[in-house]
């Protein structure tokens, strides 16, 4: 029997992307754990924090990042914890153990979503063609997380860093190919919209 092979969601897409205003790549080293704890259950929150080394973000649309973990706020009682993919089972176990006897839910969902990373300063301009949120808002800075309607599907957006801007888009695995198609269309150099609200040549009068 051959070695068990794990395939990423976009493994069937071999075509090189070109002519785009930013870099698009799928990240498949991300492990993901769905974590559910009631927001007022301080004991469970503390138990999770002991494993993760960081607090779960309590504020909407934020994330916390620590040594090996990032915790994305998904709703008042739901977080997506990301980690090194090869260690997901280990962390799922240690979180489950720490939360034993608590009212909490720990689920390994590493294969459920595809993570698409967009790198380049035109990121916001491309995302303006993908979702209705105010992507140019100053609120959207590294660490920002928002569940969005991407094209016509559900997704989550996280701003990873700036200079250059880097966003990660989380979509359900079965829709990854559709999401990539949409991004390829939106990010074409020939359709670039330039920097909105930026200084621009004055139109004729």
């Amino acid at each position, binding site marked *: 029997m051959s070695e068990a092979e794990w395939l990423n969601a976009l493994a*069937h897409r071999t075509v090189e992307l070109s002519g785009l205003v930013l870099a698009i790549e799928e990240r498949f080293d991300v492990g993901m754990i769905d974590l559910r704890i009631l927001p007022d259950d301080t004991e469970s929150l503390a138990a999770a924090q002991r494993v993760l080394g960081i607090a779960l973000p309590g504020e909407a649309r934020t994330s916390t990042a620590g040594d090996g973990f990032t915790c994305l706020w998904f709703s008042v009682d739901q977080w997506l914890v990301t980690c090194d993919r090869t260690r997901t089972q280990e962390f799922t176990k240690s979180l489950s153990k720490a939360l034993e006897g608590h*009212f909490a839910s720990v689920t390994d969902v590493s294969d459920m979503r595809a993570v698409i990373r967009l790198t380049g300063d035109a990121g916001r301009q491309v995302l303006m*063609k993908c979702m209705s949120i105010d992507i*140019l808002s100053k609120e959207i800075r590294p660490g920002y997380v928002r569940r969005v309607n991407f094209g016509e599907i559900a997704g989550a957006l996280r701003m990873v860093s700036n200079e250059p801007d880097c966003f990660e888009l989380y979509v359900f*695995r079965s829709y990854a190919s559709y999401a990539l198609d949409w991004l390829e*269309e939106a990010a*074409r150099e020939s359709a670039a919209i330039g920097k*909105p609200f930026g200084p621009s040549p004055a139109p004729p009068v």
Partner: protein
Amino acid sequence: MTVLPHRLAEAALGGQAGRLIDRTKTIRFTFDGKTMSGFAGDTLASALMANGVRVVGRSFKYHRPRGLLGLGSEEPNGLVTIGEDNRLEPNVRATQVELYDGLTARSQNRWPSLQFDVGEINNRFSRYIPAGFYYKTFMHPRAFWKHIYEPVIRRAAGLGPAPKEADPDRYEHVHIHCDVLVVGGGIAGLAAARSAMEAGARVILADENSRLGGVSDLNDEKIEGENALAWISKTTEELAASETVHLLTRTTATGHFDHNYVVMCERVCDHDPARLKNGAPRHRLWKVRTKEVVLATGSIERPIAFADNDKPGVMLASAVRGYIARYAVTPGSAAVLFTNNDDAYRTFTALYDAGVTLTRIIDSRPAPDSILTDKAKALGIPLSFGSGISSVKTEDGGKCIAGVSVTSLTGGGGLNRPIGAECDFICMSGGFNPAVHLFSHGGGKLIYDEMLQAFRPGETRERIRVVGAANGVFETAKILAEGISAGWSAARDALPKGAVKGRAPRPPKADAQPISPSEPVWFVPAHGEKNEGNKHFLDFQNDVTVADVELANREGYRSVEHVKRYTTLGMATDQGKTSNINALGILSEALGKTIPEIGTTTFRPPYTPFSFGAFVGPVRGKLFQPVRRTPVQSWHEDMGAEFEPIGQWRRPYCYPKGSERRSDAVKREVMAVRNAAGLLDASTLGKIEVRGPDAGTFLDLIYTNTMSTLKVGRCRYGLMLNDSGFLFDDGVTVRFADEHFLVHTTSGNSDHIGGWLERWHQTEWPHLKVFMTPVTEQWAQFALAGPKAHAVLEALESDIDFSGRAFPFLSFKAGRLAGVPVRVYRISFSGELSFEIATPAGFGQYLWTALMKAGEGFDIAPYGTEALHVMRAEKGFIAIGDETDGTVTPLDLGLSWAVSKKKKDFIGKRALELPDLARNDRRHFIGLLTEDPQRVLPEGAQAVADPRARPPHRVIGYVSSTYFSPTLERSIAFGLIERGRERMGETIHFAVGGTMMPAEIVDPVFYDKEAERQNV
């Protein structure tokens, strides 16, 4: 041709004429196949005028020759078809088409040619085809409407042709947010945008034209001591340089929707189609969400309803002035001017300065008095006050104007002796209507302004301010002051409290020209021998005349909304931009009511039509609908599977080999499962993990049967009802641990069920300690079914004992198979020995391949959804969506064994007790065997109560699933039939293609009634 007939010399107006054209750059284009030339900066309209083209189209109903009326988006006549083949676009306003090399334009609604049109005969008979003519005439015989009248009328009336090929260009949508959106880039809009910018707001300013400044360049006024254009340039540059202002030209705000959501269409490449080749979007739809809106949409000049006011050469006065100032063209060489207001005198000045002969100014006001009128007096232009144009003399079959008759309007009754005036074009101005369209889209109420004789914005529930001419303010100084004040206050309201400090900037100084009031002139009586044949047009685009509106009134149409629909006034593509108020004036006189009493019709989006492409945006081709892929999709595609849509999934229907027919492939797949082994990709099944101390209690409420008694490691089939007691989902629930369940849902319903569980938990039972995590996408899941399923599994390395003793039916085990983690459920939808094997999605393709390889020696075959359905039907299993349609209860389906009688409550329990659901004559789920075993009943066939009765038949049920069973070598079907369970053995009849098809009612389990095969 070096000098075009109507192009003014470069020196005209002291070199000031034609400020937008570049005479050094000649542009070639064609109109109706004829090559013409214009200059860079021309619009198609100005270039046609320069080439001496008077007739640009034929009218909608009467096919009357029509020329240009306006200068911009208000143009009702100059509709042309641009481009060819797949890039053909009909009904484009020539006034908004920027000229480019190679542009091809065609006139519309004419045959065989624009100059000679057969349809013009409609005009000769126009007295017989007034408003409502179609409704009155084409009534009988009834069948004629569809086959004769309508096709003929549709061919005769109408606008440009639709393209026949797919649009090759791309379109896109962009979402953008701002604090203040300013619509309109005239001085009012510029002032508002600048003041909002200074207050610190994020501002978008959009204008439908290619340039900013509105019509201020036509008014010869000064701002801060300079020509208005200098101030416009300076302000535009300041806005463009800002980090908080986004300027958009060629962008029409087409609609304003609730909560300040404004849709704007930018024409990105229409003026420069070469960019399309690189893939640039042709149009871009901006979806703007703004906190505050400032509308500075200006006003639209009104025509005057005089006889034959639609002749080519009758134009709006401000438009004529615009053609001279911007493009150095005039519609002719001798003009008359007919007005009821002072603004038109600016056109007189422009004509005079351009050296165009003005033979007479006709003013409906008895004694107008202002600087502008004085100037005309001083220059000795013949003036007729208190007068109107009573007839228009034409040449060349009505295509050229030769002169007008002018009659006093103050004679108190009959017409006086007319004065003649020679001219080849007419400038008319009946006042100005504020462009209130966008204000009205959001439900804004309009108020009638007696001074303006027009509607202007009143109350609105939206956060909108209206400034400048759009608000009925026409003096430059006042416009600027209003713009600045609105921009500042909009920014203040949009930004957080206290963020805007200080006061609004001082408005720039502007000289105010005193203007004497205008007076309404709704109708000018006609004069001449053939008086009755003359038409006073109100709506040029839909060919609606004053007589039509009066006729509607005589026939009893009192409401303006009814008059609109009966006459089609204001219902053309221009939405009555130039006709609305004039029609109300006519109606007002006819009804003896004031205009405010009559009210106005509703303006609806779009402000001007925009392309379907922009509407659709990127949602076409492969982005038309999101398509979901299972982890094994590529394998299915490589195997040449035929797919069927299930929700947004594409599931293999069957896997034809070579040239195998679909039905043969399905048979082969069924027999493979029945005799050997088959593998089905069931990854699309919905999967929801349910955890918590109350998980069992919660599932007891969700399902009709009891899940809390399920033992750990076991599986149970369950039914979900909606609160009306109807079955809407089914599936197998697995208990992993005391407080940990997995719920399987049908493929198409998985997202819905996820929401359903959350809804009931969050709204009805929030006290239950339970968490739901949908994990559909986490797992690839395959059904390995068939008598050799064991053997296939044993060929793979595993820590799981798959033997019947260790792994009984309806149980679950987790472990490793072929080196990957798996969850295995021994459940069966085919009736065969069957294992559903789940593995994390990333291992899906690997495990599938491993199973297929392990099964090679056992004749394994992949099978699709159709084979699955045939086998479940052979076994008498229902399928959600086939046997259910939202009106079927579990009792109807004979599934009462799955409905708990002990549980105190579950969703749908009380509804099941309703008398109608407990009726004993409901339709029951039964099996059907056709008399002829080779004939398959059509799906949905209706069963009749008495096959010998004359139609219409009483229907007693229908066929819900129907297949040819390869296992039984005969047709089988399910039906939902009235009292079906009481009729076992009875033969009933189905109406099929005009004959009756008999079938016997039987038990729905056709195969392996003892259910032994799943335990092989």
